[in-house]
């Protein structure tokens, strides 16, 4: 009997030790990154920062975390659940009737944001600079809601609230464009990620430059607008997005990742957060390693264009002579800006969530673009983002 008890004990201890050791061995880099990032916060005592970083790092770097998340998702699917909660409530994932996964937004008073945008538009007009506010669509439908009956999502509500108050701003509401062309959200959004897909970004870019041309007489290299001028590439079942990573493949499915590369010749000089690179589209803007099929589907394929969110990107297209555009974006702008860069001489992209070097007013005063485009998605309509993405230094 004692022998049996010792075997049980040995098994229990072995499982704990093995998983701990394997986590350290496979995840030490990620653990180190989390601890370093935490310690760098000057407002927190280093000991507490270290503890928080270590806790966070171990959670993120746990050995074969995806396998456990997949099993967890399977259990939720077995129970028929449409909600998968998270330690952070804002990351709770919902399953739509369309099969897409989504986050939701609470109601948010957009008055301040609207006021800031109206103010910005007025100031830019005084500088002789046009401004276009491009409203990206959310993942949930407005006209035929695909949410569970008990779920209220405020993406559309907040968006409508904002757009109604933009009295001095030229607006391109892509939701209306989608509705006009009867495009389904399932075709334009990833199942497992909160972002739109490459086709959606390309389509949105086309709509934006058309509107810029009609509203401000802005010219854009037409080669960049035609889909036939691109080669299409695909990684079938190759992308597990931000929402899919939280629920696993069994629960939420998996996406194909498709990307477009220009057939025509390109020549860029790209400066990202101070680092320069020169070459064609595929060497300066597109990162091949992100679409490496040997890498796990949980690799963030969405960042195949430009690699990540960046505070500032300066993209000079040596094959196009005209056009200086300043784009203010959140992460929805990443693939969008790649296509926009193909049709203008100089595109500068700012992400005000992280760009702190200057205020927008100072930046525009220094650089003087032909036109300013803002491309924000409804998930950015939050208190946290209100004080960064809608602060222009006016």
């Amino acid at each position, binding site marked *: 009997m004692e022998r049996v008890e010792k075997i049980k004990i040995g098994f229990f201890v072995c499982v704990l030790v093995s998983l701990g050791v394997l986590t350290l061995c496979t995840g030490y880099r990620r653990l180190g990154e989390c601890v370093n990032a935490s310690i760098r916060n000057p407002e927190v005592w280093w000991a507490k920062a270290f503890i928080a970083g270590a806790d966070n790092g*171990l959670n993120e770097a746990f050995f074969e975390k995806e396998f456990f998340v997949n*099993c967890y998702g399977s259990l939720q699917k077995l129970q028929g659940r449409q909600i998968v909660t998270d330690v952070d409530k804002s990351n709770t994932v919902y399953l739509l009737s369309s099969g897409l996964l989504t986050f939701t937004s609470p109601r948010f008073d957009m008055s301040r944001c609207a006021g800031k945008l109206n103010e910005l538009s007025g100031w830019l007009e005084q500088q002789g600079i046009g401004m276009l506010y491009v409203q990206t669509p959310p993942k949930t439908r407005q006209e035929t809601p695909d949410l569970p009956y008990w779920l209220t999502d405020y993406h559309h509500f907040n968006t409508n609230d904002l757009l109604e108050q933009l009295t001095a701003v030229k607006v391109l509401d892509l939701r209306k464009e989608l509705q006009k062309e009867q495009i389904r959200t399932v075709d334009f959004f990833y199942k497992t990620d909160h972002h739109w897909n490459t086709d959606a970004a390309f389509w949105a870019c086309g709509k934006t430059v058309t509107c810029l041309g009609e509203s401000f007489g802005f010219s854009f290299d037409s080669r960049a607008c035609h889909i036939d001028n691109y080669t299409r590439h695909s990684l079938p079942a190759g992308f597990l997005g931000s929402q899919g990573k*939280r629920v696993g493949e069994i629960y939420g499915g998996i996406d194909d990742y498709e990307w477009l590369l220009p057939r025509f010749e390109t020549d860029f000089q790209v400066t990202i957060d101070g680092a320069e690179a020169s070459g064609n589209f595929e060497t300066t803007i597109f990162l091949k390693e992100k679409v490496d099929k040997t890498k796990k589907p949980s690799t963030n394929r969405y960042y195949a264009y430009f690699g990540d969110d960046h505070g500032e990107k300066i993209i000079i297209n040596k094959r196009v002579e005209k056009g200086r555009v300043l784009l203010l974006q959140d992460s929805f702008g990443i693939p969008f800006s790649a296509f926009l860069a193909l049709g203008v001489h100089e595109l500068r992209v700012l992400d005000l969530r992280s760009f702190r070097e200057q205020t927008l007013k100072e930046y525009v005063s220094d650089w003087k673009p032909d036109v300013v485009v803002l491309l924000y998605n409804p998930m950015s309509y939050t208190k946290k983002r209100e004080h960064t993405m809608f602060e222009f230094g006016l």
Partner: protein
Amino acid sequence: MLFTSIIFLFFFLPAVLFGYYVVFKDKREAQTAFLFIASLFFYAWGEPWFVAVMLLSVACNWYFGKAASKARGDQRRGRWVLGCMLAFNISILFVFKYLVFAITNLNALLHVNLPVPEIILPIGISFFTFQSISYVIDIHRGTVNAQESPLKVGFYIAFFPQLMAGPIVRYLTIADQIDHRKESPQLFSEGVRRFLYGLAKKVLLANPMAEIVDSVFALPASEISPALAWLGSLAYGFQIFFDFSGYSDMAIGLARMFGFRFEENFNYPFIARSVSDFWRRWHISLGAWFRDYLYFPLGGSRVKSKTRLIFNLFVVWALTGIWHGANWTYLTWGLYCFVFLTFEKLSGFEKRRLGLLKYLYIHLFLLIGWVIVRSDNMPYAIEYLGRMFSPVSGGWLDVNARMYFEEYKYVFLLAALFSTPLLSNLKDKAKGSLLSPRAVYVSGAVILPLLFFVTLTYIIKGAYNPFIYFKF
């Protein structure tokens, strides 16, 4: 550090087991010292500064214990030592836990503007302070001898299994075990089993219930339908039971892994048939503490007048309520229990045969009481309770109530099942039945690892995992 965290399960616990059973094998003093230091590290992981409060408490209570021991036989001196000890411990508790509440209410009552300090409550202070008090009182009473070693007093007070959420361990329980405990594979294995069941209770049952509770109680009371109100209260009862009893199971299980046997803290409270019976099954260590250190010294039930009995009960239950937190809701809940307990004591309720009506009575008592405990303030609690009995514009049942029931129906079912001894009785019957012992044994050997695996998937995924003991 939480028992349900990755760092505890896969790093801290294996490291402590290694240190205890390998590095300091067969060196009892070193093992105890090691566990004490490990406990301080465990506590510091949550908030490093709190260790200073802990060490101060250990040092002073060790000294009071020695003083109480020397003062035996000298009643006056003994009372003086007890008085100082109580003043010290209650002051610490008051400053960290009740000062802000007291000043805020003074400002409101007297229309003054006293500065309200920002004080962070050291986790577990209510538990380790009560343990310290019981230690010195037991020495004064002659029930135990004073511990010469401050390290061992520190170990008793700070031992990590029971540090944050109890049970409140008496020194008498642990005194002999500090030097003369006997670890064994059988006891360790029992500990593992107990720990894993506690872990599952917390992660698989308490946490999902917490998702419902936190959402419901975040709503304005005016938006809550009667169905949702009852569901929210039911969910909270399950949450607090499985969270608390789960933590107690984990504490008892961890202690057994190191050769210690703690007393039980819960005994299926939801099958109680009276409020008195409920309190004999719920947070047993707390009830016993108040009984032995407050109720009995006040005279208990053996007093000459009913007025005195009622007074004793009032004091005990008011303080039991306020022990849970610095809020009028806790005091109200304590007094709510007082009313029913007094009624039962004076009416001989427990002896009456009322069959199923007793279950209805106790569960109604609990469902109403949970609302008071969980609410952030009394106005909300009152409004919420009102909502339980009168519909809003949407009627008796709203979409939220339907949603929570649909989404969490299996969790509710399992929670109801595991809050009774039904499965435990079935297991005992199976052992004594025609089923082969091997079949019963193998099924247990399969179920536990499976349960552990399922629990791990929830922990590693990072499912919702609230810590509710920060108020204690």
